[in-house]
């Protein structure tokens, strides 16, 4: 565990303006990339009091959904090349999606190409179901994930 923050001075940007979707053109159970993005945009970064959207870790464009096959693919961009929090962010995404979308959806989570030094090994770990399950049984890791998912209320402006 490093002593200081990995990225002490993250670049923070404005969040994308949220458009109220009062008239939902889709039937109730249809899922599109914006639905997915809405569910994950406010996840708090493990190290900084900002959301993944604010830190440009995620965007709506980084999400694809195949409704027919029941597949969701998310690509995220860690803030620095040697981010040891990448696996935590990946776990947070997976847990949030598990809570928000029907269980038959298959989720693939990857770091955006070129954004991480150990990209292949992180992608492999993030998509190994058994490793994910075991990680979520680790109480310390689970607590960190829960904080990232649920403490955003403390930081909203």
């Amino acid at each position: 565990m490093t002593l200081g923050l990995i990225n002490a001075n993250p670049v923070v940007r404005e969040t994308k303006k949220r458009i109220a979707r009062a008239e939902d053109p889709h039937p109730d159970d249809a899922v599109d990339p914006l639905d997915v993005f809405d569910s994950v945009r406010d996840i708090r970064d493990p190290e900084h009091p900002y959301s993944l959207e604010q830190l440009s870790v995620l965007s709506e464009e980084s999400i694809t959904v195949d409704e027919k096959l029941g597949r969701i693919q998310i690509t995220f961009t860690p803030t620095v090349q040697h981010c040891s929090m990448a696996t935590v962010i990946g776990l947070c995404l997976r847990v949030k999606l598990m809570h928000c979308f029907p269980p038959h959806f298959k989720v693939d989570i990857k770091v955006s190409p070129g954004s991480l030094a150990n990209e292949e090994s992180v992608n492999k770990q993030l998509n190994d179901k058994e490793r994910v399950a075991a990680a979520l049984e680790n109480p310390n890791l689970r607590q960190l994930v829960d904080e990232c998912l649920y403490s955003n209320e403390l930081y909203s402006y």
Partner: protein
Amino acid sequence: MELGAELREVERLEGHGDRVWSLAWNPAPENCGRAPAMLASCSGDKTVRIWQPTSSGAWDCSAVLEDAHNRTVRSCAWSPNGKLLATASFDSTIAIWEYIGNDFECVATLEGHENEVKSVSWSASGLLLATCGRDKTVWLWEVQPGNEYECVSVLQGHSQDVKMVQWHPNLDILVSVSYDNSIKVWAEDGDSDDWHCVRTLNEASSGHSSTVWALSFNTTGDRMVTCSDDLTLKIWNTGLEDYDSWRHLCTLSGYHDRTIFSVHWSSEGVIASGAADDAMCLFVENQDHSVDEAPYILLLKKEKAHDMDVNSVRWSPKEPSLLASASDDGVIKLWELSQVS
């Protein structure tokens, strides 16, 4: 060649409160009461369930083995005489259960692995137990009288998480498969009684290009099938005494489009696979195939066998056309294979 075969769902076993990871059929259920069959299942709900057919033919959960593990139970295996069940858990221990007076009692707990234990396998003689886990090691335990288990070797060699271990059906040869994409064969050195890795089958030997999740030998042990995150199944010729001659025979690809978690070879030569695409496939040897034809072919594919990932497929040792499957959906299904002419 016309292959008319049908896989019919005959039973649905529900009860587990979380995903079911593994299944194991008791090889000698007559030693555990009156029912003609006994199936063990283990789950993310931290328990093991025992399922048996009742006199009416319908299956029932006859026991829930709990309180021995405080995390996911990942794998289970029956001893050859059917009287003991070993269960491997993410809590880093292995529990040994014995059938005593109509119930199962935890008679031993094996400690030593540094973290999650992923698989357990009994040797054909019942004298050795092998376990493996995320600590990259394979442990060999000797079964001693009085429910004593002594660790006789800790095998190092894999560079990553070891997903499964399986003994050869007749010989004291052990095979392990890993997150490091390789398959390793372990045997005892004749003179020194030391166990070591006698062969590694990796990408260079026509092996897998991603995590290998499972392996299964055929009844005689001269063939082995492995399955992987690389979406293929591979068949190996393992019939030679000289380990260096073990070789790749055939790769089955294009049948699953997500990670293949489980594979099992029936006593009648049917290979079953279960994958994260919710499907199961059955393969058989292509009899009298010519040189340019595939030696193994698809018998049938069962799409949507479950509502979620299929984690385990296991043929019954007593009824060669009875197949059990387990899924992330928490359900276990029994299927009957019939060949339609």
